[in-house]
């Protein structure tokens, strides 16, 4: 019999029984749903209490274009927003920066000032629809803009919910929207955690992403282990500010991937929930149970979708949604079937939204907590996966810690070597991908994928509105606020109060970035193979 070994390196038996569960560690480290260590879910009633939030990654063109798509998705039953920003915004550049040419509004919404947030969220009830901002390098500015926009509209910031991705360490591993060197970048994450803990305690300032590390070549166990190592680095930074673990740990959230073997992913999430709860309780001494909740967005799975036979990606997406629902994800977002071609069209987004809805409405996925719990296979695999994650975390610690390994490019080199081996395994047919290395349609596949259009005029309008704001805003407030940012950065103080003041004066994303980069410098990428 040919051995079956999952991507995380665990050999899968042809059958599982109670003795396998015992041998792997038993059921002692599971608990009931809503009970430490939360392997079976963070809430006793799970989706009976609240179904997963549906939050497709959305944004393009200028803020008015994106606002229309937001309204469309909300009308179609979406319950949260997940904002995509264009690359200039994510990299801290204004829309009229020469380096932004050709990229304004292309893969996300362009944002230069607070005025853009005012337009983007116009007419959206921020109590009912929670907003997640997918931004990392420029997160201080955009978190500040979100809080300022909400405050201007009369919301109490102390009660405001929402999330920023703001996980800069994974940007150095994959995704690449870093700006400053590694150390000041981590310091800025600490600034946002500290600022939110004190001023916006319901806001989740960080969503730690295993997702992109997996996309870059990590296996599922490494995905979780590296994410936890990164989350610990941010927690250590926040503790160094004098915060108590229970003041912020409950607002840390996570973002994970779902492509690959279904059972391996479900076990990964169950094991990850237990491991994170244990770290927060035993390593950090948290007293509040919710401090150790692994609250997560799961879905996506772009790395599993294929260019070949794109309509089959609709089916893959449905299974990915099933995995996320079986795993107890708090929030779901799916990559659309046209992912390998374009940013999604309205049509593609509606299909993803319907996919998530039908699991709740027709398939009974919201009826009971942890439906796979008690399966000998899933329980054994959960124990095995936790052990793999712990081994990987111990390796990271032994090699000097995650911050150092990322700064040196070591994690990048490791996952990239794995990505290369996986690509070779796919091309040789050893690792099966339907439509790619088996069941191909050789008859010169005509891919009928409608492409999302890019309009240069939208970018020009964005630049014009930026020019108007520069003329209209107060001529002394912005320079004063920017010099306060520089002063805070130079003395090592928290820059967030000054950043908030600057965005309220309509300072631009680029101006604030330049003020910070003037003190911190800019990251130089270590290229290692």
């Amino acid at each position, binding site marked *: 019999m040919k051995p079956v070994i999952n991507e995380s390196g665990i050999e899968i038996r042809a059958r599982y029984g109670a003795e396998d569960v015992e041998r792997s560690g038993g059921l002692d480290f599971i608990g009931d749903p809503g009970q430490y260590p939360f392997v079976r879910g963070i809430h006793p009633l799970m989706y009976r209490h609240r179904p997963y939030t549906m939050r497709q990654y959305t944004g393009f063109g200028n803020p008015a274009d994106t606002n229309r798509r937001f309204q469309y998705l909300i009308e179609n039953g979406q319950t949260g927003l997940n904002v995509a920003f264009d690359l200039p915004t994510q*990299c801290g550049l204004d829309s009229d920066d020469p380096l*932004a040419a050709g990229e304004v509004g*292309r*893969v996300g919404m362009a944002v230069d000032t607070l005025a853009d947030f005012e337009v983007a969220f116009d007419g959206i009830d921020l109590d009912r629809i929670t907003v997640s901002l997918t931004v990392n390098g420029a997160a201080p500015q955009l978190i500040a803009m979100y809080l300022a926009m909400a405050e201007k509209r009369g919301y109490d910031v102390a009660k405001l919910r929402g999330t920023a991705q703001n996980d800069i360490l994974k940007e150095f591993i994959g*995704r690449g929207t870093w700006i400053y060197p590694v150390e000041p970048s981590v310091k800025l994450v600490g600034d946002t955690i500290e600022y939110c803990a004190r001023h916006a305690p319901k806001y989740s300032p960080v969503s730690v992403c295993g997702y992109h590390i997996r996309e870059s070549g990590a296996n599922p166990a490494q995905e979780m282990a590296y994410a936890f190592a990164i989350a610990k680095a941010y927690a250590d930074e926040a503790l160094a500010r004098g915060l108590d673990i229970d003041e912020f740990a409950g607002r840390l959230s996570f973002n994970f991937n779902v492509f690959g073997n279904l059972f391996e992913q479900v076990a990964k999430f169950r094991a990850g929930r237990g491991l994170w709860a244990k770290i927060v309780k035993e390593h950090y001494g948290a007293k509040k149970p919710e401090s150790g909740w692994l609250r997560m967005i799961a879905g996506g799975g772009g790395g599993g979708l294929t260019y070949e036979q794109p309509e089959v990606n609709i089916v893959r997406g449905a299974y990915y949604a099933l995995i996320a629902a079986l795993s107890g994800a708090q929030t779901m977002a799916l990559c659309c079937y046209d992912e390998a071609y374009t940013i999604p069209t309205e049509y593609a987004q509606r299909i993803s939204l319907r996919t998530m809805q039908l699991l709740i409405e027709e398939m009974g996925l919201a009826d009971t907590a942890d439906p796979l719990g008690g399966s000998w296979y899933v329980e054994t695999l959960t124990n095995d996966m936790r052990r793999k994650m712990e081994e990987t975390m111990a390796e990271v610690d032994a090699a000097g810690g995650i911050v150092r390994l990322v700064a040196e490019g070591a994690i990048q080199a490791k996952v990239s070597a794995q990505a290369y081996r996986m690509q070779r395994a796919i*091309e040789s047919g050893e690792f099966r991908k339907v439509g790619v290395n088996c069941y191909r349609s050789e008859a010169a596949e005509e891919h009928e994928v409608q492409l999302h259009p890019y309009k240069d005029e939208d970018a020009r309008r964005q630049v014009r509105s930026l020019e108007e704001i520069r003329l209209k805003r107060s001529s002394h407030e912005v320079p004063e606020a920017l010099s306060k940012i520089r002063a805070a950065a130079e003395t090592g103080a928290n820059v967030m109060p000054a950043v908030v003041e600057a965005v309220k004066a309509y300072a631009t994303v680029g101006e604030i970035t330049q003020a910070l980069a003037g003190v911190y410098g800019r990251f130089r990428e270590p290229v290692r193979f």
Partner: protein
Amino acid sequence: MNRPIKVVLAKPGLDGHDQGAKVVARALMDAGMEVIYTGLRQTPEAVARIAQDEDADVIALSSMAGSHVPFCEKLKPLLERAGLGDKLWVIGGNLPKQDHDRLKALGFRGIFPSSSRLDDIVGFVREHVR
């Protein structure tokens, strides 16, 4: 050619998706080529300068975020001015079919959209490099 084929592989513009670029770099190195991988965020000027400084035989771009056409329009005259007009220019990534003719017209002889095979890329470079 006595020395190994020398490839400058660049990530143009602000796109941070480098998994594919690094996979292709490894494939080219495994095939015995010398690869200078630039890392992220290269301007057209930087790509032309690095290719000239390195005396590259092949200029390769990897673009996943849709700005390949405006980037290549700026890069073409810079490469020509740097005396690299007769080198092999190739591009891979998320490249919709409707853009392939434009990229060819701009001088990119090898176009490798998502789903291209590593051996095909390696084979094409070997065959077409002068």
